[in-house]
């Protein structure tokens, strides 16, 4: 900037631009810090969790006959007993039932290895006795040890035997719970918001309700668990640990959020639309149902899905209503005992066996994927309905 002949020269500009630059750098570094926390977390989880996608299998001879079916640990060589998974051996009976030809044969099959062998192969801390380790090394040399895709993780429920533990029952439990939550909180929440926004008079009573709903959204979630315990389990006598109770409790928790976001979406509809409707001689119901709601719908959708995604990750209230129990089998109805993914992760994190570490991490990754996809659906739905207006 030349001083002479330049009508646009301003002496204070240099300092102002510098201050702006400093502010920009500060904001950028905050962003980088936040992102690096996130990246570190993801890397850690992925690093710990990915190995869980694979399980060690050993190729050994398995004998199928009456004796081994009754006493499965006799189906393999004695020295391999610490190496092959006991739980897998118990599955021999079912295998023969499905495939009767196997009866009275001895086959070379890929058997699930014990969790300590798995840990050894994956390079983690292990508790194998020396002789067992030597056997594994020998098998490895003969290429009879392999890492295969861990379908067990996605097909089984929880188990005290680490190599047999899976996330399926928790996943189903989560889905059932969420369904109950959605079916209860969405209609009630949206209707409440519509009443408060469009029909209620603007008096002290309504204002008090509004303040209280906003406060409810900020209450620690564990208190909702106590509420659920007191009302649903003690008063109504609903089955403990069931997705029904869990869903209802989470519904109570999600309700304020849905009400608040729906009200915001309704407020976002320009008042001119309502005025046009009333000006044509339409009744309030006609205006709200046919003109305001369709416009508010994207906002309602987004708010609800975000509320539900939050509910999916809640653990504390569900612990109080009992969903922390050990649930090996997937629930088949909403009144059976179940657990949810966050609770499952919590349980695994507290197990002594090292093998659970990777399962915990993998569980976290599965939960994260579900949450991210829910949020993506929310974004997609919002975009899809927004273009209409």
């Amino acid at each position, binding site marked *: 900037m030349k001083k002479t002949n330049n009508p646009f020269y301003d002496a204070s500009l240099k300092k102002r631009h510098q201050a702006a630059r400093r502010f920009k750098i500060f904001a950028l570094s905050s962003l980088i810090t936040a992102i690096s926390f996130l990246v570190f977390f993801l890397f850690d989880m992925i690093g710990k969790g990915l190995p869980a996608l694979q399980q060690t299998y050993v190729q050994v001879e398995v004998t199928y006959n009456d004796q081994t079916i009754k006493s499965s640990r006799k189906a393999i060589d004695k020295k391999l007993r610490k190496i092959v998974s006991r739980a897998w051996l118990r599955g021999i009976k079912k295998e023969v039932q499905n495939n009767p030809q196997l009866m009275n044969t001895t086959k070379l099959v890929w058997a699930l290895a014990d969790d300590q062998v798995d840990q050894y192969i994956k390079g983690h801390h292990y508790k194998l006795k020396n002789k067992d380790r030597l056997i594994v090394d020998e098998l490895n040399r003969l290429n009879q040890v392999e890492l295969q895709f861990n379908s067990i993780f996605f097909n089984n429920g929880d188990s005290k035997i680490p190599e047999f533990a899976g996330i399926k029952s928790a996943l189903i439990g989560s889905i059932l719970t969420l369904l109950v939550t959605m079916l209860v909180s969405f209609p009630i929440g949206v209707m409440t918001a519509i009443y408060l926004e469009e029909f209620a*008079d*603007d008096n002290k009573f309504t204002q008090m309700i509004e303040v209280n709903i906003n406060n409810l959204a900020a209450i620690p979630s564990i208190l909702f668990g106590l509420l659920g315990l007191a009302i649903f389990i003690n008063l109504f006598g609903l089955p403990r640990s069931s997705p029904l109770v869990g869903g209802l409790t989470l519904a109570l928790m999600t309700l304020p959020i849905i009400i608040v976001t729906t009200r915001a979406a309704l407020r976002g509809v*320009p008042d*001119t*639309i309502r*005025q*046009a*409707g*009333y*000006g*044509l*001689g*339409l*009744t309030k119901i*006609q205006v709200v149902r*046919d*003109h305001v709601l*369709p*416009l508010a719908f994207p906002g309602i959708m987004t708010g609800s899905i975000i509320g539900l995604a939050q509910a999916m990750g809640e653990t504390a209230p569900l612990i109080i209503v009992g969903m922390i129990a050990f649930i090996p089998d997937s629930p088949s109805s909403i009144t059976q005992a179940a657990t949810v993914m966050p609770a499952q992760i919590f349980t695994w994190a507290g197990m002594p066996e090292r093998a659970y570490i990777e399962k915990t991490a993998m569980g976290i990754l599965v939960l994260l994927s579900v949450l991210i996809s829910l949020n993506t659906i929310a974004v997609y739905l919002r975009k899809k309905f927004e273009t*209409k*207006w």
Partner: protein
Amino acid sequence: MKTKINVEDLNLWYGSKHALQNINIKLNKNKITALIGPSGCGKSTFLRCINRMNDLITAAKVEGKIVIDGKNIYDKDVDEVSVRKRVGMVFQQPNPFPKSIYENIAYAPIKHGLVNKGKACDKLVEKSLISAGLWDEVKDILHNPGTSLSGGQQQRLCIARTIAVEPDVILMDEPTSALDPISTEKIEALMLELKKKYTIVIVTHNMQQAARVADYTAFFHMGDLIEYDETETIFVNPKEKKTEDYITGRFG
């Protein structure tokens, strides 16, 4: 000159503010009456009394009578919804529904039971669009969203929508203040056509618009009706000094 709307001793309070003070005025049938005055003088408030839109505001309290076709619209046995069917309103900001052009016009008549879906409805939509001078421009795009039209077209769509419910009176609250001069001219020409069938009351802060289109003009100031006369008298020989000061730009 027949009276269509007879306003007697109309008073309105917004909370404690006395917004309209003892308004007495006879609005004539099939004529255009313009309400002019500075900002905040109560002309829009008065307009919104004629179709009871002020009932939607809880803080508004109305006293007095507005008699249309022999019946006071503020009587206890008159439903405000039915008033608004006979007295339509066009707003300052064009506000078509976020639906197709066809549905914008068809929705209210169907709800009022004037037509059923199908051929009768198609005819009504066509008739309304022709009356609003919009048919030629949109007859091939009836299923496009109403919001895809230009500002002037949107306002004519709103006018078509209003006349589709077959009102007697059309109220217009500054209908062209958000539009460009060409669109404004089109709508003013439209008003001159529409007055053959409807009684029109228009609020405008643009005096020249009142001069161009209105048969009668009413000048409001601070909630009072100062002068009401034929437009030519108001603009050439106003009787009240306040009127003259406003018209000549001495204030407001």
